[in-house]
């Protein structure tokens, strides 16, 4: 064998002009792609901001954030966002009451108790569940969950907060389960062995060692779930009704911030009217909420980071 590897490598390299060019060009192309998403974000935020400012030229900011009546249509419109916020929060609280316990319990099962075989089957199914279009969940809430709930609470109207709240929770379960499971699986086995060797049962290991060790990831998954519930649109637009109400009664019809935006963009308001601009102000409020949640989740991940 008279092959000189060194020579071959030298020859190949010097011949590849294209390679040299792409070596230089590639970072620039990647940079452009990255800039596109940054610019889009800036653009959207700016548009949102401009239109929101237009809205606040017509409606007082104080009235907007403290008003308890949301009545954008008709003669005497009133833009107090609290009823929409209360609607959104009702949905979020119901959803998290469903998603956190079930999601966390599924994660504990998958990470600590399931055999590798079962995990291999269940995890992909969970991820498929996360891919179901939300409109499907929406009519699932309206045509299946609401009638079922009506059997229990006969006075329940067709549109109510409870049913879409539960369904939003169901939608979020896979997300919490999957992210929490990731966090728990990355807890080193050393720690489980240490705890088992002291006579802990598997449940004690799961709840007293693994969950605390994975807490930052678990809480981050909760916060992401909350921000998902706040931003969820289709399910509430379909099944929660369109009655902005400052109320804690979850059996009534309500409207969320997202639900309102859908209603208006479907053509309930003429372009340029105050009502039209109000969706930007509501959108801005939503944006602030989810931004705060994301910041919170980042803070929590850093604050509770367990080093191992």
């Amino acid at each position, binding site marked *: 064998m008279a092959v000189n590897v060194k020579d071959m490598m030298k020859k190949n390299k010097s011949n590849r002009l294209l390679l040299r060019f792409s070596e230089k060009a590639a970072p620039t192309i990647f940079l452009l792609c990255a800039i596109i998403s940054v610019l889009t974000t800036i653009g959207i935020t700016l548009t949102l901001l401009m239109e929101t400012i237009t809205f606040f030229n017509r409606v007082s900011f104080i009235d907007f954030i403290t008003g308890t009546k949301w009545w954008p249509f008709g003669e005497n419109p009133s833009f107090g966002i609290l009823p929409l916020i209360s609607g959104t929060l009702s949905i979020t609280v119901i959803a998290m009451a469903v998603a956190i316990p079930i999601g966390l319990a599924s994660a504990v099962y998958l990470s600590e108790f399931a055999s590798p075989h079962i995990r291999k089957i269940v995890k992909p199914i969970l991820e498929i569940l996360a891919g179901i279009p939300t409109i499907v969940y929406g009519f699932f809430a309206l045509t299946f969950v609401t009638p079922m709930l009506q059997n229990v609470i006969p006075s329940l109207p067709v549109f109510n907060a409870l049913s879409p709240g539960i369904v939003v929770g169901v939608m979020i379960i896979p997300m919490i389960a999957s992210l929490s499971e990731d966090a728990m699986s990355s807890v080193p086995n050393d720690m489980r062995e*240490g705890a*088992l060797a*002291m*006579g802990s*049962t598997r449940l004690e290991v799961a709840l*007293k*060692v693994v969950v*605390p060790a994975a807490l930052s990831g678990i809480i981050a998954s909760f916060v992401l779930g909350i921000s998902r519930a706040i931003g969820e649109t289709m399910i509430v637009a379909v099944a929660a009704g369109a009655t902005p109400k400052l109320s804690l009664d979850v059996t009534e019809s309500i409207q969320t911030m997202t639900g309102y935006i859908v209603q208006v963009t479907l053509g309930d308001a003429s372009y340029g009217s105050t009502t039209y601009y109000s969706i930007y102000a509501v959108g801005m409020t939503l944006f602030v909420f989810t931004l705060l949640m994301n910041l919170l989740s980042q803070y929590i991940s850093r604050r509770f980071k367990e080093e191992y």
Partner: protein
Amino acid sequence: MNSAAKTNHVPVPNTTVKPNSGDSKSIYSIQNFSLWYGNDQALQDVQFDIPANNVTAIIGPSGCGKSTFIKALNRMVELVASVKMSGSISYNRKDIFSPKYKVEELRTNVGMVFQHPNPFPKSIYENVAYGPKIHGIKKKKVLDEIVEKSLKGAALWDEVKDRLQENAFGLSGGQQQRLCIARCLAIEPDVILMDEPTSALDPISTAKIEELVQKLKEDYSIVIVTHNMQQAARISDKTAFFLNGEVIEYSNTDELFSNPKDKRTEDYITGRFG
């Protein structure tokens, strides 16, 4: 198999445990114990008694089954799904593999210190208090006492008493390992199994752990797996030499090192292989 060691292996029917002949009380009695991972045999007809309040060292080259053996003593080996066993191991005259024997009870009596320090990602205090807490001790005052006593027992108290609430990961490797020993002492086991407890530590930390082992044997029976023959010679009373899953020789440490009966033991301790 030409040695005297092999001829000692008189097959004994399962679960019948004979009282140890003559010398001090034995805490473990291992009879004809074999173990497989899937189809690979890791231990073959292991048979000897482990005396109480002694340090018993398990030596042998890598892959000889010594870690597997020590993990069988507290049934940690069962965490490997494919494991199969035959023969018996009795702890205080009770067969530990009998269905009636609760594994949690066994592991409460038999503590373990691992090769790599594995404190929990909690404070120093919480690490030590973990064991007592899961076994139902909740009173703060009692826990405080246990934590102090255990940390003193592990010769760590003076170094950490002012920062009990700090995360255990802030400790050095040697301190972490002593913390793991303290964590183990907190539930007052009878036996402490140590699986190469100093292999990840520097010489000074190693010396501290060895010193500690000497002190601990007054109250505990210790089984220690080690790669380091000098360590075995320094700290143990009895030594078992494992090779390819078999016990080649088991005797008093000074005897085994000064006057090995088996050629393979001699080759190993004189550094001809392993």
